[in-house]
């Protein structure tokens, strides 16, 4: 067999212009084609020496990574070779890659549709077989939602399990790096390489989980809860719902207890998230002033220069969230918004943890809709509201995985399994059980659309 690296390089060369999954490639690409090692793709908000890190933003268009993110360093030390950096919504803010300053990525199942986001480039690359796996980042569903829309496995680990050092911060208390793969076993294998405490990230935790194991996927005897607030969400498309319910039936047949339960605070998930995440983002993005690095307009005095750098450097969605966060953190509104959101966050975490005392996992669709057409949804609030399924895991720091189930009209659908903190390995193990029941898999791997198999 040909060397894996050149195999994927050739596929990228052939197909990337159709998908816009990769934004750019490491310096000196091609010279290492016959190196041993395993290739992978990296979301372009994760730093790696020898690559630019643009965050799909004009303000970091020419920014060259001055150091390796901990995940990049760990994967490289295990033999990983970076194929390229993948597209995303600017600074990971969005659910479609339409907010990328470098154009949206396309969904490999239908090029007229979005791949989801923000890790849409990573999802498209893996789903079209341009990379065996990719890393994404998940702040409110940015790994799991595009995985669902592109028909691959997307895993968000327990908060603190994977170091954030070198991940460009969006909302620090919610961000988590996770693998995007074609099966749960691959996700587990990637976790074996990237998980573990990092002295460079004070929020990383000691890893009590041994990932270097083979998944068994035995579902018998499991107790799973489906929150009614999610199942009855008015935006849930019929097709997605029936695919979900048919998997629930298959699970029951496999000896799983599935109960409908209520998690009342989930109704506030989106509101809570859109107070906390923009608040942190407004502060995290203050460093992009064009003074030390980044694109810079030379005009006027300092204030004028910074205003102009940020005005021309950031896109609309980023500006919207910075404004929102700046407002909710202001002294006059802090108590009414930010402090209240922190309270709701604690309440929601308590409720979810209490459900997870009685049940092994929480189950719901990963996205209420199939991948929409590019440009179809123009109102940002519609996108915000769709995050209801993925946000709770970020709010409570829980591990959560999206697995492809029966497609609807040729478009992928994902089911979301969320577990207790540090149940990451078991969660992936059960996800592999779901894979065996899912028509989206073939020979243990998620299917790749025909057209990319020529």
């Amino acid at each position: 067999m040909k060397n894996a690296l050149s195999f994927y390089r050739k596929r990228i060369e052939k197909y990337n212009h159709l998908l816009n999954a990769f934004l750019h490639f490491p310096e000196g690409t091609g010279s290492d084609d016959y190196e041993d090692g395993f290739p992978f793709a990296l979301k372009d908000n994760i730093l790696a020496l020898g690559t630019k890190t643009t965050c799909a933003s004009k303000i970091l268009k020419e920014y060259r990574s001055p150091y390796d993110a901990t995940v990049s360093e760990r994967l490289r030390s295990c033999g990983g070779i970076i194929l390229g950096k993948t597209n995303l919504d600017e600074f990971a803010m969005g659910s479609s890659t339409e907010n990328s300053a470098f154009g949206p990525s396309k969904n490999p199942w239908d090029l007229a549709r979005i791949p989801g986001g923000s890790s849409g480039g990573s999802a498209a690359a893996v789903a079209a077989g341009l990379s065996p796996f990719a890393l994404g980042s998940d702040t409110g569903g940015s790994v799991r939602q595009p995985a669902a829309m592109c028909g691959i496995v997307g895993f968000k680990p327990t908060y603190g399990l994977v170091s954030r050092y070198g991940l460009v911060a969006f909302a620090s208390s919610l961000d988590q790096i996770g693998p995007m793969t074609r099966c749960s076993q691959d996700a587990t294998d990637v976790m074996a390489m990237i998980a573990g405490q990092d002295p460079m990230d004070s929020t990383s935790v000691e890893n009590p989980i041994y990932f270097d194991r083979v998944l068994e996927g035995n579902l018998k005897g499991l107790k799973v809860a489906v929150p009614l607030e999610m199942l009855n969400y008015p935006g849930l498309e019929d097709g997605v719902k029936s695919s979900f319910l048919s998997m629930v039936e298959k699970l029951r047949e496999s000896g799983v207890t599935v109960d409908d339960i209520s998690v009342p605070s989930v109704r506030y998930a989106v509101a809570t998230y859109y107070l906390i995440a923009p608040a942190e983002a407004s502060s995290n993005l203050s460093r992009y002033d064009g003074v030390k690095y980044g694109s810079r307009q030379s005009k006027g005095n300092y204030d004028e220069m910074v205003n102009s750098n940020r005005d021309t450097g950031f896109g609309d969605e980023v500006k919207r969230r910075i404004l929102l966060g700046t407002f909710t953190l202001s002294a006059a509104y802090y108590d009414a918004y930010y402090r209240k959101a922190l309270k709701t966050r604690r309440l929601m975490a308590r409720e979810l943890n209490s459900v997870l005392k009685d049940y092994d996992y929480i189950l719901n669709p990963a996205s209420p809709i199939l991948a929409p057409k590019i440009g179809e949804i123009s109102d940002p609030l519609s996108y915000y509201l769709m995050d209801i399924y993925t946000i709770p895991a970020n709010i409570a720091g829980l591990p959560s995985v999206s697995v492809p189930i029966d497609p609807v009209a040729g478009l992928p659908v994902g089911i979301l399994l969320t577990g207790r903190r540090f149940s990451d390995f078991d969660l992936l193990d059960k996800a592999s059980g779901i894979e065996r029941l899912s028509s989206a898999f073939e020979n243990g791997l998620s299917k790749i659309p025909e057209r990319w198999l020529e």
Partner: protein
Amino acid sequence: MYTTIIGLEIHAQLQTSTKAFCGCRADVFELEPNTAICPVCTGQPGALPVLNQQVVDFAIMAGLAMNCSLRERSVFDRKNYFYPDLPKGYQITQYFYPIAEEGHLRLETGESSKTVRIRRIHIEEDAGKMVHQGTDSITGSSGSYLDLNRCGVPLIEIVTEPDLSTPYEARVFMELLRDTLRAIGVCSGDMEKGALRCDANISLKDEKTGKSSNRVEIKNINSFKFVEKALESEQLRIADHLNRGENVAKETRSWDFATKETYSMRSKEEENDYRYFPEPDLPVLLVKGERIAYLRENLPELPWEKIARFKEQYGLPTYDAGVLASDSAIASYFEIAAEITGKPKDCSNWIMGDIMRLMNERNLTIGELGLAPEYLKELFSMIDSGRISKKIARDILPEVIDRKLSPAAIVKEHGFEQINDDNAIEKAIRQAMEENPHAVKQFREGKEGVLGYFVGAVMKATRGKANPGRANEIARRLLEG
């Protein structure tokens, strides 16, 4: 009559080996610009802070020295504002839950003493430095350069209650604070190098009407002398306004040491909304009670404890004890010298006199001056035995230091032994009496003071080597004839 109300906010750089949140060295004062920087302290995308535990220990020690209550659970916050010297666009500080609160220091101003309450002490990081072209500030400069070495250097901010009532008290308080921070080894205390910085809040209250002026904040005070000068100048300015029936603007002013005046920087209305919120990149700071107890037990001797001990143990007057205790190197030199010579008061006199004068003249620390206490002992014993006069001892001190040679050897080399030979002294006095019969007459008419003239003449004739006691005695005998 007006009462003055002053409160201080002091920033002290901590003398840790590395910065507050990264591994860069923290002693950056004399380094080439931008040579002690890394992805963390320059705010590169994706970089994260990691708290230096030595910073926590130092802040706790400062809290203990100032009798604060310490939080076992404190939190870091972000203070958000844009400025070129702040690479992250926010400063990591402790706003909502500082590590230390509600302390006090006892302030002795010589004539009186009072308690100054400490409101809080919190940990934060320093910003970088800017060099402007053409002007002193960013406004109107044709270009500005950034040195990010200082970014992330650990600071503690100490905030007092408004318990100070004169500019002089404020200065003495700053000196006490410097001595305290130095004694526990957490800060160099050099205001001139920016290691200790002071912002002062001042307002005046009309005793008759009970009305208070607006509060004015003065920034950029960079020496102990200027703490007093800036507040004096501001005190006058506010009183002047009040006398005219006006109030001063509620504003922030800057001290200009060239004009010896303050000038307006910005009004309070123009101040930033810093949008404080808990720093999500750092966990809650938990300090174990055992750690606090350990630091408390091992806290170095504090200035006022040392003063009390010097008075008690060495029988020194308060003034001497205060001077010696204010510098830990001098204090320990004194203790060694007192031990070796067995003469604490003589040591104190010599240290506060000639030794500190030489230190100042040569701009050296006591250690750099390099006077072995054994040589002091030799000087003292030569004086006591009458071998040399005190004056000769003082005269040869610089040579002892410069040549690192024993005082006895120097005395011998120069023939500086004291003349105790009565005959030689008598001869010199008789010669002086012959040369100045008028003075002899004056003495005999009752002008006692003239005696000094004859002793002086002896000293001159013997180049200062005559035993002054003997010269005095013999002169009196011969003159009384």
